[in-house]
């Protein structure tokens, strides 16, 4: 499935509905379906807020691909390039508004990384495996890019 829509927060509910459908179809339990919808909602919200400074008339695309062992989400935009090192989820001791989106993405996805070879704006790839792998590489560097 692929969706190319405006960077308008009023369309986020559509993003969540579509993700919920494909996550359910892929066989994820309801709790994971909620988490995946939320993670993609957060990633799309960040595109709107950070890559496009809340411009509602730009575009981004979202692709969902199901595989036997995983589901993959690819979000592409044509906005300002993210400096992956700038994306640092806030420390949880820090009670302030903000910094939660990337933290939720990291919680809900097994992998999340920006494609440094992408020539447009940003290409964020997120992966969720059917039975969540818990390995040291997951907990560490590969997630910190998300």
């Amino acid at each position, binding site marked *: 499935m692929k969706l190319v829509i405006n960077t*308008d*927060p*009023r369309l*986020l*509910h559509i993003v*969540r509905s579509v993700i919920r459908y494909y996550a359910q179809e892929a066989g994820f339990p309801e709790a994971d379906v*909620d988490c995946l919808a*939320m993670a993609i*909602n*957060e990633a799309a*919200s960040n595109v*709107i*807020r950070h890559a496009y400074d809340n411009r509602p008339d730009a575009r981004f695309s979202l692709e969902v691909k199901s595989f036997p062992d995983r589901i993959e989400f690819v979000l592409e935009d044509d906005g300002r390039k993210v400096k992956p090192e700038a994306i640092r989820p806030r420390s*949880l*001791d820090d*009670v*302030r*508004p*903000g910094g*939660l*989106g990337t*933290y*939720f993405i990291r*919680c809900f996805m097994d992998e999340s990384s920006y494609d440094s070879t992408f020539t447009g704006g940003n290409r964020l790839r997120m992966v969720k495996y059917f039975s969540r792998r818990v390995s040291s590489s997951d907990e560490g560097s590969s997630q910190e890019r998300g």
Partner: protein
Amino acid sequence: MKVQVRNVDNVSVIDCSGDVDLYSSTDLRGTLLKEMRSGKPNVLVNMTGVSYIDSSGIATLVEGLQLSRETKTRFGLFGLRSNARSVLELARLHTVFAIFDNEKEALEKIATTEPFGGL
């Protein structure tokens, strides 16, 4: 999402329903900050009807919490569904908010809740 304010004695109850996301959280933010700035002594957010809340909704509640310290407003939440509660727990924010089970408990306890010093 819908946001409506009711006054119950000296408590402002903000009834929210639907999805709180980047689009709708601006409504909640406006209402919440306005109630606090207008000098209401007690503000409660009724989350009974909230089926979804994302980081922008949580950020809005945290902003309310911060403002409540400045304005000396007692601020609490009630009626959280399990997914809203999970999201707050995941963000480790469930302990910084005064969270009540339902409206009755919230109305009884809000006036005697310690103002928050956790920030």
